[in-house]
């Protein structure tokens, strides 16, 4: 009895401690989310007090909107940057985990982009990718490519050019996490494999890769979610252009909401975006049983 009341006492003190945070979450996450769900069925325009219920009109409009399908396509292209970045990060981490010269410096260099400001990064890449005088195209022309791509200046290449920036941007973070995972692997296991006669490639793919699979899983899931939501990089570089070719879903939401003030429609798109993220997460959660080894 005595013990019980102690727990009860501890319990409510605990609730008091988390109360400010819970109120914050309620006020700034849960209520707005419910509010936007409600707005999905209205034609509410930001700042305009007159609105009406439109039922499923917004959803109908969404599925008949060409820009919506285009933005899904661009989002998928953008998401491809995540696995590519992971693959490169894994290889870089493997190399840096061995004894190479200037290891510390190299690690720092790879990590540098991640701690730089997004707008600065955007600016640097805008200069690098400049179609007529940018250093990248200068090099390409030097090695004999007569008409190098226009990168950001071309609607067929702009999304891929942004992928490159995103890969570069994420590389350092992914690499550091991988390095940590690699150092967790016990030397006994590697030793045992070596004594059994496994070669370097076999050790990497049969021992190391499965052992870091929880890390890969974590990075993949957070990377995909982060990428699908991210928009500041694109907003800073192309602003969704040229001719809408880098308008991914999140940018589409932003434009609809804050350029056109169509909050009802924007809510509909953002709930779709939520559904996309949910599906990605569920698929991975189910799929992890097959390839993640703890």
């Amino acid at each position, binding site marked *: 009895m005595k013990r019980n009341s102690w727990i009860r006492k501890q319990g409510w003190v605990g609730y008091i401690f988390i109360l400010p945070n819970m109120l914050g979450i309620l006020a700034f996450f849960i209520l707005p989310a419910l509010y936007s769900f409600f707005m999905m069925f209205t034609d509410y325009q930001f700042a305009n007090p007159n609105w009406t219920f439109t039922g499923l009109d917004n959803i109908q409009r969404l599925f008949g909107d060409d820009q919506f399908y285009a933005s899904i396509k661009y989002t998928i292209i953008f998401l491809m940057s995540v696995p590519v970045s992971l693959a490169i990060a894994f290889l870089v981490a493997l190399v840096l985990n061995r004894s190479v010269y200037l290891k510390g410096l190299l690690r720092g260099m790879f990590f540098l982009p991640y701690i730089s400001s997004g707008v600065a990064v955007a600016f640097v890449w805008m200069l690098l*990718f400049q179609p007529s005088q940018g250093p990248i195209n200068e090099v390409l022309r030097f090695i004999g490519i007569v008409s190098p791509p226009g990168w950001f200046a071309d609607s067929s290449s702009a999304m891929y050019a942004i992928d490159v920036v995103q890969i570069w941007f994420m590389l350092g973070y992914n690499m550091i996490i991988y390095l940590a995972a690699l150092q967790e692997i016990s030397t006994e296991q590697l030793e045992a494999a070596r004594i059994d006669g496994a070669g370097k490639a076999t050790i990497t793919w049969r021992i190391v890769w499965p052992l870091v699979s929880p890390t890969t899983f974590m990075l993949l899931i957070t990377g995909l979610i982060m990428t699908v939501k991210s928009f500041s990089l694109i907003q800073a570089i192309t602003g969704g252009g040229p001719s809408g070719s880098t308008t991914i879903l999140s940018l589409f939401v932003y434009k609809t909401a804050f350029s*056109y003030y169509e909050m009802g429609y924007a809510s509909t798109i953002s709930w779709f975006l939520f559904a996309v993220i949910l599906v990605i997460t569920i698929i991975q959660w189910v799929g992890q049983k097959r390839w993640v080894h703890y």
Partner: protein
Amino acid sequence: MKYRNWLKAALITTLTASMLSACGGANNEGASAGSANQNAGETINLTLWGAVPAEAGPQEVIDSWNKENPDIQVEYFRYVNDDPGNLKLDTALMTGQDADLFVNYTLNRLQKRVDAGVALDLSSRTDYNIDEQMGVDAAQWKIGDKYYGIPTKKNMLFIWLNKSMLDEAGLPIPPVDWTWDDLREYAKALTKSNVYGLMQHDAAFTAAIDGTIAGLGVTTAEGTSNFNNDLWKKQLQIVHDMMFVDKSTPEYGEQVTSKMPVDTMFLKGEAAMLAAGEFIFRNANNLKDFPHDFKIAFATIPKVSADQKDYKYAGGLGDMLSVNAKSKHQDAAWKFAKWYADGGMLPMASGGRLPSSKSVDNKQAMDLLLKGVEDKYDTESMNSVVFGEFPSFQLNVPQQALDARKEEYEKYFLNEQDIDTTLKNMAKRHQEYIK
């Protein structure tokens, strides 16, 4: 036990209250107070939101007001005239934060604020005749036959010319009724290595096609979109040729993606002609940061073809100063607005913002504009173009349709779509917004 419950309740209440009070503060007082407060003899504090950097004139304007009117003190708050900036202003207006006066720069934005009920309908104010003070162009800012603000300045878009380069190439200053074909020839003749014949500021890029449709009508007689008219085809084609055949103007993709600072480049002598608005004066008059030794002359944004009737020039009036309909000090704000329009804004003339009110001596504004830089401008073309009178317009097309139009012509300028498809798509997408 009871004591504990009481404590619990008290704690929760305090925490909740402290959280909520942070959010609700601004709304407590009703908007109905109106002019009642004004009699009290205490100082009224007003806030003016505008997009011009405070140091480029507005600070001087409100400083002199504050000195003359100790009972009404105005504070200037700068918002950037882009999507995030306008969102900030709209949020402030909607949530009743202090924005007693605000400046609108496009009809689209004003329309939204009128719909939201935050711009004061001025038909109740009989002590100021906007039509009479500001001239016929003011009516373009009417919404539903009513004024929701005072259009305070003359808007202008024109071609800025580097006179030295013109002289060098043996070209006279073009006549006011020149055409895009003439412009193309000029640009071709003026292009050298590292010098573009023509550069176009974002704001001026669509000036000719907007001016065309302002005359032709946004829709045809049948009520369908007029975005596929032949004059647009011709103008877009000329610009396209200038980019890819003559190479006298930067390629579109390159200009956009490298965010070319066209005004700086023009002042540095990297472009012989620049299509842009009067806002360039801010930099052109600033010889310290933008030193240049050539004279600047002016030409109009050309017509598409010589026989084009009813072509209109981008411009008219701008800087629409509105009073917040929810402001507690509407009378004081209105008093300031009238003063601002009728000459109070004069210090901003040095940055190119010429007052439109007839109460302002034009000469005085011009002197301010040219103070210390008289020798940097060609007087004759300045008088005929910058201070000239041209039929003008305010574009009234929904933002979505304008953005869709932009996406389509971008495809054309990126060589991803031919001109006919471009026009067809522009009209098709515009049609979606015609009710």
